């Protein structure tokens, strides 16, 4: 049985970016179809650590991050659940003087961005966060940041979009997209044909082939987060914890479980699927027990992982296609998309409605890879594995 649909906007990928864009667009009166190859919110948006964090982002992400910052406390009104969002503050730890100097430099660099970072020395840390063990020389505290439950937030946006009238099509992989006159034609599983004026490519780790099919190859790779969850504990940690050098991150949810992340999982035979490495998980667990004495008698009850899209410069691709009018990209968030995603959704909706947005997104243009694509054959796979840019290096 074949089915045809005609909408203003077709969104490929029902993660937090796609579903928040869908909800925003519906609010503007557009007809929207949201397509996901599996279940909405089941990939990177739903399996990430859950940090709602501005601190530590590259400066070019901060305007977007600030925009999203305003969305988080409004979740209940927006999608009907608060997503367990907790404005706990985000404390980034430094293990040595060099790390502390990096935190100080960062704080100075972004001083004008409104994050209200507070640098805390060793004694201050002892006084205010006595539950942190030895081996930490200082920290940088962002009081407005926090954490939330990714499983609920991403699924909640998709459910709210459906309630708002978005055609949410799960288990519906998009098999091909072409430009057909002033419209796009999408072929999807189940003999579904879709025509739309706009297409948003928010397919996460699966976004590459869609960009490439419009002549815009991108060096998108995959990363797999690795998380450990403890049994529920009496309150141990009051803030969302990060660490310079990304050694470990940890937060305690209201129910009492402590979520500890770090290391990377490895893909299984099917690279869509991954699983934490046993020794990697052990290493995270041991580090957590060393850093937080309150966890020394805790049991780890569950690990998880997932698939996330990553870019070599760790910035996402957000914005209009350079080759195809009506096509918008938003993917490659490199393990740091959760907090900014609701802001990205709003920006995408504005780009559809107005063709522009006041939030600066030039740094995320897909055009920054033009040189690569001009020199290499799009289908060859060359240029897909560039070295990551070093801090301070000038980006193309």
């Amino acid at each position, binding site marked *: 049985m074949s089915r045809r649909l005609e909408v203003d906007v077709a969104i490929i990928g029902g993660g937090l970016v796609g579903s928040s864009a869908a909800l925003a667009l519906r609010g503007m009166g557009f007809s929207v179809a949201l397509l996901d190859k599996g279940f909405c919110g089941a990939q990177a948006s739903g399996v990430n650590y859950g940090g709602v964090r501005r601190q530590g982002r590259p400066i070019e992400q901060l305007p977007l991050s600030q925009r999203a910052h305003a969305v988080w406390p409004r979740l209940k009104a927006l999608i009907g659940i608060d997503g367990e969002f907790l404005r706990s503050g985000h404390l980034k730890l430094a293990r040595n003087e060099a790390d502390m100097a990096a935190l100080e430099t960062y704080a100075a660099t972004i001083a004008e961005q409104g994050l209200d970072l507070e640098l805390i020395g060793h004694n201050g840390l002892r006084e205010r966060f006595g539950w942190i063990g030895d081996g930490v020389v200082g920290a940088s505290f962002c009081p407005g940041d926090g954490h939330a439950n990714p*499983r609920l937030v991403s699924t909640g946006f998709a459910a709210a979009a459906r309630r708002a009238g978005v055609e949410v099509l799960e288990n519906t992989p998009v098999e091909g997209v072409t430009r057909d006159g002033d419209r796009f034609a999408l072929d999807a599983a189940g003999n579904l044909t879709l025509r739309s004026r706009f297409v948003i490519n928010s397919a996460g780790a699966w976004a590459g082939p869609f960009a490439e099919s419009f002549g815009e190859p991108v060096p998108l790779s995959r990363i797999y987060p690795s998380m*450990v969850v403890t*049994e529920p504990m009496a309150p141990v940690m009051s803030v969302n914890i990060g660490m310079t050098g990304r050694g470990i991150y940890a937060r305690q949810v209201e129910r009492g479980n402590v979520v500890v992340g770090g290391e990377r999982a490895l893909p299984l035979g099917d690279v869509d699927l991954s*699983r934490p490495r046993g020794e990697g998980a052990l290493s995270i667990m041991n580090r957590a027990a060393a850093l937080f004495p309150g966890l020394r008698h805790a049991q780890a009850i569950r690990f998880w992982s997932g698939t996330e899209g990553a870019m070599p410069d760790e910035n996402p691709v957000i914005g209009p296609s350079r080759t195809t009018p009506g096509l918008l990209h938003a993917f490659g968030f490199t393990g740091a998309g959760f907090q900014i995603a609701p802001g990205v959704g709003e920006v995408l909706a504005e780009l559809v409605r107005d063709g522009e947005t006041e939030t600066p997104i030039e740094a995320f243009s897909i055009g920054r890879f033009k040189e690569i694509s001009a020199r290499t054959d799009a289908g060859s796979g060359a240029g897909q594995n560039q070295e990551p840019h070093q801090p301070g290096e000038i980006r193309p």
Partner: protein
Amino acid sequence: MNGQSTSERQQPLIVGAGPAGIRAAQALVKAGLRPLVVDESPACGGQIYRQRLVPDGRSSRDLYGSEAQKAEALHRDFAALDGRLDYWPQALLWNLRDGRADIMVEGTSRQVAYDGLVLATGATDRILPIPGWTLPGVFTLGGAQIALKSQGCAIGSRIVFLGSGPLLYLVAWQYMKAGAKVAAVLDTAPFSAKFNLLRGLPLFPSIVLRGMRMTAELKLGGVALHYGVGDVRIEGTEKVGAIAWRQDGLEHRLACDGVGYGLALRSETQLADLAGCSFAFNQRDRALLPERDAAGRTSVAGVYLAGDGAGITGADAAERAGERSALALLQDRGLPHDASRAATLEADLARIGRFRDVLEAAFPFPAHWVRDIADTTTLCRCEEIKAGEVRAAIGQFGVHELNRLKAVSRIGMGRCQGRICGAGAAELLAHETNRNIEAVGRLRSQAPIKPVPLTLALAAQPEAAE
């Protein structure tokens, strides 16, 4: 590893030292291999032939009844393998992948490379949530049996056994024989279902007759047998005080201080899942189970399944399936194996399989119960999620797949990872969304398969220095 392997290839790994694991180990040793056997219990025998923690004067006959000879043979045969295999009791295999296993033993975690994996992981009781099922004094049937066998403890002084499956009558009978006061047996199936057992007579007359004798002895011993019970509630505030049920439209209530409850068994499939085995729906067990051929081969080369961990067939089948899977491993390695023995084992297993069909008809799972689970009844005891919260999550998020239900409701996220609540959650989801039970899927397994300490240290790896 110990470097004593008689083969140039790495050791085969056998998980579980119950009837299936023991017979698999025996067959591999006989062929000259040196398997590593990993088992969570302190002594071999599995749950069915579990040994006493300390000698307490009870004989094998006291412990295992008519199955005493089988138990003794298994314990003796496994002991006779000493020195020709490696055996790690009290060891938890908590993670598995691509020929490597993470095993917690003696307080540290060792990573073991294996070549050939026999999973004989057994089963646990299957339950549906009922009011009061989390009260102290409520045990699963298997748990009640373990308490008696292993520790010589009764679960109460006035005990009611509730549910379905052969274990219901067996455990009640064992308790009565041990001198405990059994107040009643509440069978969820109507008496008429038991006529199905007559079809089992030609297949296994001794088992059917033994079952009939146990039932008769329970009656003679003054134990009330009630059939077709429904709407069961276990009452009490701090512990079990009574059990109430409906039968033929009438309300019944009985004071008791211990309840043994179970609706047959469910396979422990986590390791097969982590090993990458594909799963398929099994109508008889009403569950998605790892696929295997008649020899125990899975969809993954070198991974074999035996015993109740791959589908409920009981201890006699487990012994045969354990040996059969070992023969398959030998054959797949190009080693000599006894093909006629393999054929005999497969024929035996097929006959036992037909008998399990009969038992399933005689002890059906009360799938209709799920309709009546009250919103206030706890579904997931680890995460303290009530049935009403699950129903609300299903509606609010439009969920119709079990892992999505887990994501939005927390069911199956706690210490047991859904081993206890998973079956009930699947039944509830299927009912609420008007889908078949097989359509809602199964909870994907994740390491660690059971909780491990955060401070668990990785043992030094001698071979890692190469």
